[in-house]
Protein backbone atom coordinates (compact mmCIF):
# COMPACT_ATOMS: atom_id res chain seq x y z
CA UNK A 1 0.00 0.00 0.00
CA UNK A 2 2.84 2.33 0.88
CA UNK A 3 4.42 1.43 -2.47
CA UNK A 4 1.23 2.35 -4.29
CA UNK A 5 0.98 5.67 -2.46
CA UNK A 6 4.57 6.69 -3.15
CA UNK A 7 4.12 5.63 -6.78
CA UNK A 8 1.03 7.83 -7.10
CA UNK A 9 2.79 10.68 -5.32
CA UNK A 10 5.67 10.48 -7.82
CA UNK A 11 3.20 10.57 -10.72
CA UNK A 12 1.42 13.59 -9.24
CA UNK A 13 4.76 15.34 -8.70
CA UNK A 14 5.62 14.70 -12.35
CA UNK A 15 2.46 16.56 -13.37
CA UNK A 16 3.83 19.79 -11.88
CA UNK A 17 6.75 20.36 -14.30
CA UNK A 18 4.45 19.41 -17.20
CA UNK A 19 1.92 21.98 -16.05
CA UNK A 20 4.61 24.67 -15.67
CA UNK A 21 6.12 23.88 -19.08
CA UNK A 22 2.70 24.08 -20.69
CA UNK A 23 1.94 27.39 -19.01
CA UNK A 24 5.28 28.84 -20.18
CA UNK A 25 4.84 27.59 -23.76
CA UNK A 26 1.25 28.86 -23.86
CA UNK A 27 2.22 32.22 -22.47
CA UNK A 28 5.21 32.60 -24.80
CA UNK A 29 3.21 31.52 -27.85
CA UNK A 30 0.50 34.06 -27.19
CA UNK A 31 3.14 36.71 -26.44
CA UNK A 32 5.34 35.78 -29.41
CA UNK A 33 4.98 39.21 -30.92
CA UNK A 34 6.27 40.84 -27.74
CA UNK A 35 2.96 42.62 -27.49
CA UNK A 36 -0.21 40.49 -27.39
CA UNK A 37 -2.36 43.61 -27.62
CA UNK A 38 -1.05 44.33 -31.11
CA UNK A 39 -1.72 40.74 -32.06
CA UNK A 40 -5.27 40.95 -30.80
CA UNK A 41 -5.78 44.29 -32.57
CA UNK A 42 -5.10 42.52 -35.87
CA UNK A 43 -8.40 40.74 -35.32
CA UNK A 44 -10.44 43.76 -34.25
CA UNK A 45 -11.76 46.13 -36.85
CA UNK A 46 -13.22 49.00 -34.81
CA UNK A 47 -10.36 50.09 -32.54
CA UNK A 48 -11.22 52.75 -29.98
CA UNK A 49 -8.95 54.14 -27.22
CA UNK A 50 -11.26 52.38 -24.74
CA UNK A 51 -10.64 48.94 -26.23
CA UNK A 52 -6.93 49.65 -26.27
CA UNK A 53 -6.97 50.65 -22.58
CA UNK A 54 -9.07 47.62 -21.67
CA UNK A 55 -6.73 45.32 -23.55
CA UNK A 56 -3.67 46.87 -21.93
CA UNK A 57 -5.18 46.25 -18.48
CA UNK A 58 -6.27 42.74 -19.42
CA UNK A 59 -2.75 41.69 -20.44
CA UNK A 60 -0.98 43.67 -17.66
CA UNK A 61 0.96 45.66 -20.25
CA UNK A 62 3.60 47.98 -18.86
CA UNK A 63 5.06 45.22 -16.67
CA UNK A 64 8.12 43.22 -17.78
CA UNK A 65 7.32 39.92 -19.50
CA UNK A 66 8.17 37.62 -16.57
CA UNK A 67 5.98 39.65 -14.21
CA UNK A 68 3.18 39.42 -16.78
CA UNK A 69 3.65 35.63 -16.85
CA UNK A 70 3.32 35.30 -13.08
CA UNK A 71 0.36 37.70 -12.97
CA UNK A 72 -1.35 35.68 -15.68
CA UNK A 73 -0.60 32.36 -13.96
CA UNK A 74 -1.81 33.64 -10.61
CA UNK A 75 -5.01 34.94 -12.26
CA UNK A 76 -5.48 31.52 -13.82
CA UNK A 77 -4.94 29.65 -10.55
CA UNK A 78 -7.51 31.90 -8.88
CA UNK A 79 -10.06 30.96 -11.51
CA UNK A 80 -9.88 34.31 -13.25
CA UNK A 81 -9.55 33.19 -16.85
CA UNK A 82 -9.95 36.66 -18.28
CA UNK A 83 -12.44 38.25 -20.59
CA UNK A 84 -13.25 36.87 -24.02
CA UNK A 85 -12.61 39.62 -26.57
CA UNK A 86 -15.98 39.07 -28.15
CA UNK A 87 -18.37 37.95 -25.41
CA UNK A 88 -18.38 37.54 -21.66
CA UNK A 89 -15.90 36.02 -19.22
CA UNK A 90 -14.03 32.91 -20.20
CA UNK A 91 -14.64 31.25 -16.84
CA UNK A 92 -18.41 31.22 -17.34
CA UNK A 93 -18.08 29.43 -20.68
CA UNK A 94 -15.27 26.99 -20.13
CA UNK A 95 -17.39 24.60 -18.03
CA UNK A 96 -20.17 24.10 -20.60
CA UNK A 97 -17.52 23.66 -23.34
CA UNK A 98 -15.67 21.08 -21.25
CA UNK A 99 -18.92 19.26 -20.51
CA UNK A 100 -19.80 19.15 -24.22
CA UNK A 101 -16.38 17.73 -25.09
CA UNK A 102 -16.57 15.10 -22.35
CA UNK A 103 -20.11 14.20 -23.43
CA UNK A 104 -18.51 13.03 -26.67
CA UNK A 105 -15.08 11.80 -25.52
CA UNK A 106 -16.00 9.67 -22.49
CA UNK A 107 -18.70 7.54 -24.16
CA UNK A 108 -16.37 7.15 -27.17
CA UNK A 109 -13.52 6.02 -24.91
CA UNK A 110 -15.71 3.53 -23.03
CA UNK A 111 -17.40 2.19 -26.18
CA UNK A 112 -14.19 1.79 -28.17
CA UNK A 113 -12.41 0.13 -25.25
CA UNK A 114 -15.43 -2.08 -24.51
CA UNK A 115 -15.72 -3.22 -28.12
CA UNK A 116 -12.00 -3.10 -28.94
CA UNK A 117 -10.79 -5.45 -26.20
CA UNK A 118 -13.06 -8.45 -27.01
CA UNK A 119 -12.57 -7.85 -30.75
CA UNK A 120 -8.77 -7.79 -30.38
CA UNK A 121 -8.86 -10.98 -28.27
CA UNK A 122 -11.16 -12.65 -30.80
CA UNK A 123 -8.83 -11.67 -33.63
CA UNK A 124 -5.70 -12.88 -31.83
CA UNK A 125 -7.26 -16.23 -30.94
CA UNK A 126 -8.02 -16.86 -34.62
CA UNK A 127 -4.78 -15.47 -36.08
CA UNK A 128 -4.72 -15.54 -39.91
CA UNK A 129 -8.32 -16.80 -40.14
CA UNK A 130 -10.72 -15.00 -42.46
CA UNK A 131 -12.35 -13.11 -39.59
CA UNK A 132 -8.90 -12.07 -38.26
CA UNK A 133 -7.90 -10.79 -41.71
CA UNK A 134 -11.19 -8.89 -41.95
CA UNK A 135 -10.69 -7.29 -38.52
CA UNK A 136 -7.03 -6.35 -39.07
CA UNK A 137 -7.69 -4.97 -42.56
CA UNK A 138 -10.55 -2.80 -41.31
CA UNK A 139 -8.43 -1.68 -38.36
CA UNK A 140 -5.47 -0.58 -40.47
CA UNK A 141 -7.86 1.40 -42.69
CA UNK A 142 -9.28 2.88 -39.50
CA UNK A 143 -5.93 4.16 -38.26
CA UNK A 144 -5.09 5.52 -41.72
CA UNK A 145 -8.18 7.69 -41.92
CA UNK A 146 -8.63 11.29 -40.78
CA UNK A 147 -11.42 11.01 -38.20
CA UNK A 148 -13.13 14.12 -39.49
CA UNK A 149 -13.17 12.79 -43.09
CA UNK A 150 -15.22 9.81 -41.91
CA UNK A 151 -17.38 12.45 -40.22
CA UNK A 152 -17.91 14.35 -43.49
CA UNK A 153 -18.83 11.10 -45.26
CA UNK A 154 -21.27 10.22 -42.45
CA UNK A 155 -22.86 13.67 -42.78
CA UNK A 156 -23.22 13.26 -46.56
CA UNK A 157 -24.84 9.82 -46.22
CA UNK A 158 -26.94 9.99 -43.03
CA UNK A 159 -27.84 13.68 -42.82
CA UNK A 160 -27.91 15.13 -46.30
CA UNK A 161 -29.15 12.12 -48.26
CA UNK A 162 -31.09 9.92 -45.86
CA UNK A 163 -32.13 12.77 -43.48
CA UNK A 164 -31.97 10.36 -40.55
CA UNK A 165 -29.76 12.45 -38.24
CA UNK A 166 -28.76 16.10 -37.73
CA UNK A 167 -25.45 17.22 -39.25
CA UNK A 168 -24.33 19.92 -36.82
CA UNK A 169 -24.50 21.14 -33.23
CA UNK A 170 -25.12 19.34 -29.94
CA UNK A 171 -28.79 20.31 -29.63
CA UNK A 172 -31.42 22.02 -31.76
CA UNK A 173 -31.61 25.72 -30.88
CA UNK A 174 -35.41 25.74 -31.28
CA UNK A 175 -38.23 23.27 -32.09
CA UNK A 176 -38.96 21.03 -33.93
CA UNK A 177 -36.78 18.67 -31.92
CA UNK A 178 -35.43 15.45 -33.32
CA UNK A 179 -37.65 12.51 -32.38
CA UNK A 180 -40.01 14.65 -30.34
CA UNK A 181 -38.33 15.66 -27.07
CA UNK A 182 -35.23 17.53 -25.87
CA UNK A 183 -33.35 14.45 -24.52
CA UNK A 184 -33.97 12.49 -27.72
CA UNK A 185 -32.86 15.56 -29.65
CA UNK A 186 -29.52 15.56 -27.80
CA UNK A 187 -29.17 11.83 -28.48
CA UNK A 188 -29.84 12.33 -32.19
CA UNK A 189 -27.09 14.94 -32.34
CA UNK A 190 -24.67 12.68 -30.47
CA UNK A 191 -25.04 9.57 -32.62
CA UNK A 192 -23.01 10.57 -35.71
CA UNK A 193 -19.94 12.16 -34.03
CA UNK A 194 -19.90 9.45 -31.35
CA UNK A 195 -20.02 6.61 -33.90
CA UNK A 196 -17.27 8.19 -36.00
CA UNK A 197 -15.00 8.79 -33.00
CA UNK A 198 -15.65 5.31 -31.61
CA UNK A 199 -14.94 3.59 -34.92
CA UNK A 200 -11.61 5.36 -35.37
CA UNK A 201 -10.33 4.90 -31.78
CA UNK A 202 -11.59 1.30 -31.88
CA UNK A 203 -9.10 0.57 -34.64
CA UNK A 204 -6.15 1.62 -32.45
CA UNK A 205 -7.29 -0.52 -29.50
CA UNK A 206 -8.00 -3.60 -31.61
CA UNK A 207 -4.50 -3.47 -33.11
CA UNK A 208 -2.79 -2.99 -29.74
CA UNK A 209 -4.80 -5.69 -27.94
CA UNK A 210 -4.33 -8.15 -30.79
CA UNK A 211 -0.54 -7.66 -30.92
CA UNK A 212 -0.18 -7.99 -27.14
CA UNK A 213 -2.53 -10.99 -26.97
CA UNK A 214 -0.58 -12.80 -29.69
CA UNK A 215 2.50 -12.33 -27.56
CA UNK A 216 0.77 -13.34 -24.31
CA UNK A 217 -0.90 -16.45 -25.76
CA UNK A 218 2.54 -17.84 -26.66
CA UNK A 219 3.92 -17.54 -23.12
CA UNK A 220 4.67 -20.52 -20.94
CA UNK A 221 2.29 -19.51 -18.18
CA UNK A 222 -0.61 -19.76 -20.63
CA UNK A 223 0.49 -23.28 -21.53
CA UNK A 224 0.77 -24.00 -17.82
CA UNK A 225 -2.73 -22.68 -17.16
CA UNK A 226 -4.11 -24.82 -19.98
CA UNK A 227 -2.26 -27.89 -18.73
CA UNK A 228 -3.77 -27.43 -15.29
CA UNK A 229 -7.17 -27.86 -16.88
CA UNK A 230 -8.60 -24.32 -16.74
CA UNK A 231 -11.37 -23.50 -19.20
CA UNK A 232 -10.47 -21.71 -22.41
CA UNK A 233 -12.37 -18.61 -21.24
CA UNK A 234 -10.43 -18.55 -17.98
CA UNK A 235 -7.08 -18.95 -19.69
CA UNK A 236 -7.81 -16.28 -22.31
CA UNK A 237 -9.44 -13.60 -20.21
CA UNK A 238 -8.09 -14.14 -16.69
CA UNK A 239 -4.52 -15.12 -17.48
CA UNK A 240 -3.48 -13.94 -20.95
CA UNK A 241 -5.60 -10.77 -21.23
CA UNK A 242 -4.59 -9.50 -17.81
CA UNK A 243 -0.99 -9.38 -18.99
CA UNK A 244 -1.79 -8.23 -22.51
CA UNK A 245 -3.85 -5.27 -21.36
CA UNK A 246 -1.29 -3.54 -19.10
CA UNK A 247 0.90 -2.13 -21.90
CA UNK A 248 -2.29 -1.02 -23.66
CA UNK A 249 -3.37 0.93 -20.59
CA UNK A 250 0.05 2.60 -20.49
CA UNK A 251 -0.16 3.58 -24.13
CA UNK A 252 -3.72 4.87 -23.76
CA UNK A 253 -2.63 6.89 -20.74
CA UNK A 254 0.44 8.34 -22.37
CA UNK A 255 -1.32 9.12 -25.61
CA UNK A 256 -4.45 10.64 -24.08
CA UNK A 257 -3.20 13.97 -25.36
CA UNK A 258 -3.24 12.74 -28.93
CA UNK A 259 -6.60 11.07 -28.36
CA UNK A 260 -8.01 14.49 -27.53
CA UNK A 261 -6.10 15.75 -30.53
CA UNK A 262 -8.80 14.48 -32.87
CA UNK A 263 -11.25 16.72 -31.04
CA UNK A 264 -10.63 20.07 -32.81
CA UNK A 265 -11.15 18.66 -36.31
CA UNK A 266 -14.02 16.33 -35.45
CA UNK A 267 -15.82 18.95 -33.37
CA UNK A 268 -15.37 21.49 -36.17
CA UNK A 269 -16.80 19.05 -38.72
CA UNK A 270 -19.95 18.59 -36.66
CA UNK A 271 -19.94 22.18 -35.26
CA UNK A 272 -19.92 20.43 -31.86
CA UNK A 273 -19.51 23.30 -29.36
CA UNK A 274 -16.79 21.69 -27.22
CA UNK A 275 -13.28 22.77 -26.26
CA UNK A 276 -11.76 21.71 -29.60
CA UNK A 277 -14.26 23.63 -31.73
CA UNK A 278 -14.10 26.72 -29.52
CA UNK A 279 -10.29 26.55 -29.60
CA UNK A 280 -10.35 26.65 -33.38
CA UNK A 281 -12.83 29.54 -33.40
CA UNK A 282 -10.83 31.49 -30.79
CA UNK A 283 -7.45 30.89 -32.43
CA UNK A 284 -8.85 31.91 -35.81
CA UNK A 285 -10.31 35.14 -34.40
CA UNK A 286 -7.24 35.69 -32.13
CA UNK A 287 -9.33 35.60 -28.96
CA UNK A 288 -6.16 35.03 -26.90
CA UNK A 289 -7.68 34.72 -23.38
CA UNK A 290 -9.92 31.92 -24.66
CA UNK A 291 -6.99 30.25 -26.45
CA UNK A 292 -4.85 30.35 -23.30
CA UNK A 293 -7.65 29.06 -21.09
CA UNK A 294 -8.54 26.14 -23.40
CA UNK A 295 -4.89 25.11 -23.76
CA UNK A 296 -4.48 25.03 -19.99
CA UNK A 297 -7.78 23.22 -19.38
CA UNK A 298 -6.99 20.53 -21.96
CA UNK A 299 -3.56 20.05 -20.37
CA UNK A 300 -5.12 19.68 -16.93
CA UNK A 301 -7.59 17.14 -18.33
CA UNK A 302 -4.73 15.19 -19.89
CA UNK A 303 -2.73 15.22 -16.64
CA UNK A 304 -5.73 14.14 -14.54
CA UNK A 305 -6.49 11.35 -17.00
CA UNK A 306 -2.85 10.27 -16.89
CA UNK A 307 -2.83 10.03 -13.10
CA UNK A 308 -6.11 8.11 -13.20
CA UNK A 309 -4.72 5.66 -15.72
CA UNK A 310 -1.51 5.33 -13.70
CA UNK A 311 -3.71 4.21 -10.80
CA UNK A 312 -5.41 1.64 -13.04
CA UNK A 313 -1.98 0.51 -14.20
CA UNK A 314 -0.71 0.11 -10.64
CA UNK A 315 -3.79 -1.95 -9.75
CA UNK A 316 -3.30 -4.18 -12.81
CA UNK A 317 0.45 -4.68 -12.47
CA UNK A 318 1.68 -5.50 -8.95
CA UNK A 319 5.31 -4.91 -9.96
CA UNK A 320 4.60 -1.17 -10.15
CA UNK A 321 3.46 -1.12 -6.52
CA UNK A 322 6.56 -2.91 -5.25
CA UNK A 323 9.42 -1.13 -6.99
Amino acid sequence: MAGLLSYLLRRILFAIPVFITVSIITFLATNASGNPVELVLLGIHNRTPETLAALNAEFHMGEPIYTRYFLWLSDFMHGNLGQSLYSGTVASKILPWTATTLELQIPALLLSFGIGVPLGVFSAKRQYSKSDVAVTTTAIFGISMPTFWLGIMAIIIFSLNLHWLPSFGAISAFPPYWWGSIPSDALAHLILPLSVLTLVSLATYVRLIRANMLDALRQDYVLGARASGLSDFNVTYKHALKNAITPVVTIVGLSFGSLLAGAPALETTFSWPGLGYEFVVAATSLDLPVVQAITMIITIMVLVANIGLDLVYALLDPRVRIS
Partner: protein
Amino acid sequence: MQEEVLLPKHEAGSQRGAGQWAVAWRRFKRNRSGLAGLAMVGFFAVLAIYGLFLDPVPARSFACLYQGCSNLPPFTNWAHPLGTETSGIDVWQEIIHGSAGDLYVGIGATAIAIALGVLVGAVAGYRGGVAGALLLGVTQIFFTLPVLIFILLFARIGTLLVAQGLGLTLIVAILGLFGWSGIAFIVRGEIFRIRELEYVQASKSLGASQSRILFRHIVPNALSPIIVVSSLLVAGNILTEVVISFLGFSDPSASTWGLILEEGLQYVRTSWWVSFFPGLAIIFCVLGFNLLGDGLSDALNPRLRE
Protein backbone atom coordinates in the same frame (compact mmCIF):
# COMPACT_ATOMS: atom_id res chain seq x y z
CA MET B 1 33.23 -35.57 -42.82
CA GLN B 2 31.91 -34.82 -39.39
CA GLU B 3 34.20 -31.78 -39.06
CA GLU B 4 33.04 -30.31 -42.34
CA VAL B 5 29.46 -30.36 -41.14
CA LEU B 6 30.42 -28.70 -37.90
CA LEU B 7 32.50 -26.00 -39.53
CA PRO B 8 30.84 -25.03 -42.82
CA LYS B 9 33.44 -22.46 -43.90
CA HIS B 10 31.84 -21.52 -47.23
CA GLU B 11 28.52 -20.89 -45.54
CA ALA B 12 30.01 -18.57 -43.00
CA GLY B 13 31.48 -16.63 -45.91
CA SER B 14 28.23 -16.42 -47.84
CA GLN B 15 26.40 -15.27 -44.73
CA ARG B 16 28.75 -12.38 -44.42
CA GLY B 17 28.05 -11.67 -48.10
CA ALA B 18 24.37 -11.34 -47.38
CA GLY B 19 24.50 -8.37 -44.98
CA GLN B 20 21.71 -7.50 -42.62
CA TRP B 21 20.04 -5.22 -45.18
CA ALA B 22 20.02 -7.92 -47.86
CA VAL B 23 18.48 -10.34 -45.38
CA ALA B 24 15.90 -7.76 -44.39
CA TRP B 25 15.02 -7.08 -48.04
CA ARG B 26 14.66 -10.82 -48.72
CA ARG B 27 12.27 -11.08 -45.80
CA PHE B 28 10.43 -7.91 -46.80
CA LYS B 29 9.91 -9.15 -50.37
CA ARG B 30 7.87 -12.06 -49.08
CA ASN B 31 5.53 -9.76 -47.12
CA ARG B 32 2.66 -8.94 -49.45
CA SER B 33 1.07 -6.20 -47.38
CA GLY B 34 4.49 -4.56 -46.91
CA LEU B 35 5.04 -4.61 -50.68
CA ALA B 36 1.56 -3.16 -51.22
CA GLY B 37 2.50 -0.36 -48.82
CA LEU B 38 5.72 0.29 -50.71
CA ALA B 39 3.75 0.41 -53.98
CA MET B 40 1.28 2.95 -52.53
CA VAL B 41 4.06 5.15 -51.22
CA GLY B 42 5.82 4.85 -54.59
CA PHE B 43 2.63 5.81 -56.42
CA PHE B 44 2.25 9.01 -54.42
CA ALA B 45 5.97 9.79 -54.79
CA VAL B 46 5.57 9.56 -58.59
CA LEU B 47 2.44 11.70 -58.40
CA ALA B 48 4.33 14.30 -56.33
CA ILE B 49 7.25 14.45 -58.79
CA TYR B 50 4.83 14.71 -61.72
CA GLY B 51 2.98 17.50 -59.95
CA LEU B 52 6.16 19.40 -59.14
CA PHE B 53 7.98 19.19 -62.47
CA LEU B 54 5.82 17.88 -65.32
CA ASP B 55 2.20 18.77 -64.70
CA PRO B 56 1.09 21.42 -67.25
CA VAL B 57 -1.83 22.47 -65.02
CA PRO B 58 -0.66 24.73 -62.18
CA ALA B 59 -1.75 24.18 -58.57
CA ARG B 60 -4.95 25.89 -57.41
CA SER B 61 -5.91 26.95 -60.93
CA PHE B 62 -9.28 28.66 -61.20
CA ALA B 63 -9.29 28.37 -65.02
CA CYS B 64 -12.57 26.44 -65.03
CA LEU B 65 -14.34 29.47 -63.60
CA TYR B 66 -13.87 31.24 -66.99
CA GLN B 67 -14.24 28.15 -69.15
CA GLY B 68 -17.59 27.17 -67.65
CA CYS B 69 -16.46 23.84 -66.22
CA SER B 70 -16.83 24.64 -62.51
CA ASN B 71 -18.78 22.35 -60.14
CA LEU B 72 -18.59 19.37 -62.50
CA PRO B 73 -19.53 15.98 -61.02
CA PRO B 74 -16.88 13.23 -61.35
CA PHE B 75 -16.58 10.86 -64.32
CA THR B 76 -18.50 13.16 -66.65
CA ASN B 77 -15.68 15.06 -68.33
CA TRP B 78 -12.37 13.30 -68.92
CA ALA B 79 -10.42 16.54 -68.79
CA HIS B 80 -11.59 16.69 -65.14
CA PRO B 81 -12.00 13.02 -64.17
CA LEU B 82 -12.78 13.58 -60.47
CA GLY B 83 -14.89 16.67 -60.95
CA THR B 84 -14.30 20.32 -60.08
CA GLU B 85 -15.14 22.64 -57.20
CA THR B 86 -17.60 25.52 -57.41
CA SER B 87 -14.55 27.81 -57.49
CA GLY B 88 -13.30 25.96 -60.59
CA ILE B 89 -10.45 24.04 -58.92
CA ASP B 90 -9.94 20.57 -60.44
CA VAL B 91 -10.07 17.85 -57.74
CA TRP B 92 -7.71 15.40 -59.49
CA GLN B 93 -5.12 18.13 -60.15
CA GLU B 94 -5.29 19.18 -56.49
CA ILE B 95 -4.75 15.57 -55.41
CA ILE B 96 -1.60 15.53 -57.59
CA HIS B 97 -0.28 18.85 -56.28
CA GLY B 98 -1.35 18.03 -52.74
CA SER B 99 0.73 14.84 -52.72
CA ALA B 100 3.90 16.92 -53.11
CA GLY B 101 2.84 19.16 -50.22
CA ASP B 102 1.79 16.33 -47.92
CA LEU B 103 4.84 14.14 -48.63
CA TYR B 104 7.05 17.19 -47.98
CA VAL B 105 5.38 17.81 -44.62
CA GLY B 106 5.21 14.11 -43.68
CA ILE B 107 8.81 13.26 -44.58
CA GLY B 108 10.39 16.62 -43.68
CA ALA B 109 8.81 16.75 -40.21
CA THR B 110 9.81 13.13 -39.61
CA ALA B 111 13.41 13.91 -40.56
CA ILE B 112 13.56 16.74 -38.02
CA ALA B 113 11.88 14.57 -35.38
CA ILE B 114 14.38 11.73 -35.98
CA ALA B 115 17.38 14.04 -35.76
CA LEU B 116 16.12 15.53 -32.49
CA GLY B 117 14.88 12.22 -31.09
CA VAL B 118 18.11 10.35 -31.84
CA LEU B 119 20.20 13.13 -30.36
CA VAL B 120 18.15 13.46 -27.16
CA GLY B 121 17.56 9.71 -26.79
CA ALA B 122 21.20 8.83 -27.45
CA VAL B 123 22.56 11.32 -24.96
CA ALA B 124 19.87 10.49 -22.36
CA GLY B 125 20.58 6.78 -22.75
CA TYR B 126 24.35 6.94 -22.82
CA ARG B 127 24.92 9.59 -20.18
CA GLY B 128 23.48 8.86 -16.80
CA GLY B 129 23.42 11.44 -14.07
CA VAL B 130 21.79 14.83 -14.10
CA ALA B 131 21.99 15.43 -17.86
CA GLY B 132 20.39 12.07 -18.63
CA ALA B 133 17.64 12.51 -16.05
CA LEU B 134 16.94 16.03 -17.26
CA LEU B 135 16.66 14.94 -20.91
CA LEU B 136 14.42 12.05 -19.91
CA GLY B 137 12.19 14.48 -18.03
CA VAL B 138 11.96 16.81 -21.03
CA THR B 139 11.11 13.83 -23.24
CA GLN B 140 8.35 12.75 -20.86
CA ILE B 141 6.94 16.26 -20.78
CA PHE B 142 6.81 16.43 -24.59
CA PHE B 143 5.24 12.98 -24.66
CA THR B 144 2.45 14.03 -22.29
CA LEU B 145 1.67 17.44 -23.83
CA PRO B 146 -1.56 17.78 -25.80
CA VAL B 147 0.66 18.23 -28.83
CA LEU B 148 -1.94 19.04 -31.48
CA ILE B 149 -3.25 22.02 -29.54
CA PHE B 150 0.29 23.45 -29.46
CA ILE B 151 0.89 22.66 -33.10
CA LEU B 152 -2.29 24.54 -34.01
CA LEU B 153 -1.40 27.45 -31.73
CA PHE B 154 2.11 27.80 -33.15
CA ALA B 155 0.90 27.38 -36.72
CA ARG B 156 -1.65 30.17 -36.23
CA ILE B 157 0.74 32.57 -34.49
CA GLY B 158 3.60 31.60 -36.81
CA THR B 159 1.74 32.20 -40.07
CA LEU B 160 0.53 35.49 -38.68
CA LEU B 161 3.80 36.91 -37.43
CA VAL B 162 7.03 35.35 -38.50
CA ALA B 163 6.61 33.22 -41.51
CA GLN B 164 4.13 34.47 -44.02
CA GLY B 165 6.34 33.46 -46.92
CA LEU B 166 7.49 30.16 -45.47
CA GLY B 167 4.33 28.24 -46.32
CA LEU B 168 4.52 24.55 -45.51
CA THR B 169 8.07 24.77 -44.15
CA LEU B 170 6.68 26.38 -41.00
CA ILE B 171 4.37 23.37 -40.53
CA VAL B 172 7.32 21.02 -41.13
CA ALA B 173 9.35 22.76 -38.43
CA ILE B 174 6.49 22.81 -35.89
CA LEU B 175 5.56 19.15 -36.46
CA GLY B 176 9.22 18.16 -36.16
CA LEU B 177 9.80 20.16 -32.98
CA PHE B 178 6.79 18.59 -31.25
CA GLY B 179 7.11 15.07 -32.64
CA TRP B 180 10.43 13.67 -31.48
CA SER B 181 9.61 12.33 -28.01
CA GLY B 182 8.52 8.83 -29.09
CA ILE B 183 11.74 8.32 -31.03
CA ALA B 184 13.83 9.56 -28.10
CA PHE B 185 12.21 6.92 -25.85
CA ILE B 186 12.93 4.14 -28.34
CA VAL B 187 16.53 5.22 -28.91
CA ARG B 188 17.14 5.50 -25.17
CA GLY B 189 15.80 1.99 -24.58
CA GLU B 190 17.88 0.54 -27.42
CA ILE B 191 21.01 2.23 -26.10
CA PHE B 192 20.50 0.82 -22.63
CA ARG B 193 20.40 -2.59 -24.30
CA ILE B 194 23.33 -2.12 -26.69
CA ARG B 195 25.84 -0.32 -24.49
CA GLU B 196 26.30 -3.44 -22.37
CA LEU B 197 27.15 -5.60 -25.42
CA GLU B 198 30.68 -6.91 -25.83
CA TYR B 199 31.68 -5.02 -28.95
CA VAL B 200 30.95 -1.73 -27.21
CA GLN B 201 33.11 -2.77 -24.27
CA ALA B 202 35.78 -3.79 -26.77
CA SER B 203 35.83 -0.43 -28.52
CA LYS B 204 35.84 1.31 -25.14
CA SER B 205 38.91 -0.69 -24.10
CA LEU B 206 40.58 0.33 -27.38
CA GLY B 207 40.26 3.91 -26.21
CA ALA B 208 37.50 5.21 -28.49
CA SER B 209 35.98 8.52 -27.44
CA GLN B 210 32.48 8.62 -25.99
CA SER B 211 30.91 10.34 -28.95
CA ARG B 212 32.61 7.92 -31.36
CA ILE B 213 31.27 4.93 -29.44
CA LEU B 214 27.82 6.49 -29.30
CA PHE B 215 27.39 7.63 -32.89
CA ARG B 216 29.64 5.13 -34.75
CA HIS B 217 28.94 1.95 -32.81
CA ILE B 218 25.71 2.22 -30.86
CA VAL B 219 23.33 4.38 -32.94
CA PRO B 220 23.81 2.40 -36.20
CA ASN B 221 22.83 -0.76 -34.33
CA ALA B 222 19.70 0.89 -33.02
CA LEU B 223 18.63 1.74 -36.59
CA SER B 224 15.95 -0.89 -37.24
CA PRO B 225 13.40 0.35 -34.68
CA ILE B 226 14.10 3.92 -35.80
CA ILE B 227 13.36 2.99 -39.41
CA VAL B 228 10.12 1.26 -38.47
CA VAL B 229 8.91 4.14 -36.32
CA SER B 230 9.84 6.72 -38.97
CA SER B 231 7.52 5.10 -41.46
CA LEU B 232 4.67 5.15 -38.95
CA LEU B 233 5.60 8.72 -37.97
CA VAL B 234 5.36 9.90 -41.59
CA ALA B 235 1.84 8.46 -41.63
CA GLY B 236 0.97 10.28 -38.41
CA ASN B 237 2.49 13.56 -39.60
CA ILE B 238 0.48 13.46 -42.82
CA LEU B 239 -2.72 12.96 -40.80
CA THR B 240 -1.78 15.90 -38.54
CA GLU B 241 -0.98 18.09 -41.54
CA VAL B 242 -4.40 17.25 -42.96
CA VAL B 243 -6.00 18.39 -39.70
CA ILE B 244 -3.96 21.63 -39.66
CA SER B 245 -4.88 22.56 -43.24
CA PHE B 246 -8.48 21.43 -42.79
CA LEU B 247 -8.87 23.81 -39.85
CA GLY B 248 -7.33 26.63 -41.88
CA PHE B 249 -4.17 26.97 -39.75
CA SER B 250 -1.77 26.37 -42.64
CA ASP B 251 -0.68 28.47 -45.60
CA PRO B 252 -3.87 28.93 -47.66
CA SER B 253 -1.93 29.25 -50.91
CA ALA B 254 -0.08 25.92 -50.54
CA SER B 255 -1.75 22.89 -52.11
CA THR B 256 -2.49 20.21 -49.53
CA TRP B 257 -5.13 17.52 -49.19
CA GLY B 258 -6.43 19.03 -45.96
CA LEU B 259 -7.14 22.33 -47.73
CA ILE B 260 -9.34 20.59 -50.33
CA LEU B 261 -11.18 18.78 -47.54
CA GLU B 262 -11.84 22.15 -45.93
CA GLU B 263 -13.34 23.40 -49.19
CA GLY B 264 -15.15 20.07 -49.46
CA LEU B 265 -16.87 20.67 -46.12
CA GLN B 266 -17.99 24.10 -47.35
CA TYR B 267 -19.57 22.58 -50.46
CA VAL B 268 -20.71 19.39 -48.75
CA ARG B 269 -24.37 20.02 -49.60
CA THR B 270 -23.81 20.31 -53.34
CA SER B 271 -20.56 18.56 -54.26
CA TRP B 272 -19.74 15.40 -52.30
CA TRP B 273 -16.81 14.58 -54.64
CA VAL B 274 -14.72 17.53 -53.42
CA SER B 275 -14.25 15.88 -50.02
CA PHE B 276 -14.61 12.22 -51.04
CA PHE B 277 -11.68 11.74 -53.47
CA PRO B 278 -8.98 13.71 -51.58
CA GLY B 279 -9.99 11.67 -48.51
CA LEU B 280 -9.28 8.47 -50.46
CA ALA B 281 -5.87 9.85 -51.46
CA ILE B 282 -5.07 10.56 -47.78
CA ILE B 283 -6.22 7.10 -46.68
CA PHE B 284 -4.14 5.26 -49.28
CA CYS B 285 -1.03 7.37 -48.73
CA VAL B 286 -1.21 7.00 -44.94
CA LEU B 287 -2.14 3.32 -45.31
CA GLY B 288 0.92 2.88 -47.54
CA PHE B 289 3.26 4.24 -44.88
CA ASN B 290 1.52 2.20 -42.14
CA LEU B 291 1.77 -1.05 -44.15
CA LEU B 292 5.36 -0.23 -45.04
CA GLY B 293 6.13 0.31 -41.34
CA ASP B 294 4.47 -2.97 -40.33
CA GLY B 295 6.31 -4.82 -43.11
CA LEU B 296 9.66 -3.29 -42.12
CA SER B 297 8.98 -4.15 -38.51
CA ASP B 298 8.51 -7.83 -39.45
CA ALA B 299 11.52 -7.83 -41.77
CA LEU B 300 13.92 -6.11 -39.37
CA ASN B 301 12.82 -7.86 -36.17
CA PRO B 302 15.67 -10.29 -35.30
CA ARG B 303 13.35 -12.34 -33.10
CA LEU B 304 11.34 -13.36 -36.17
CA ARG B 305 14.41 -14.11 -38.31
CA GLU B 306 14.64 -17.67 -39.62
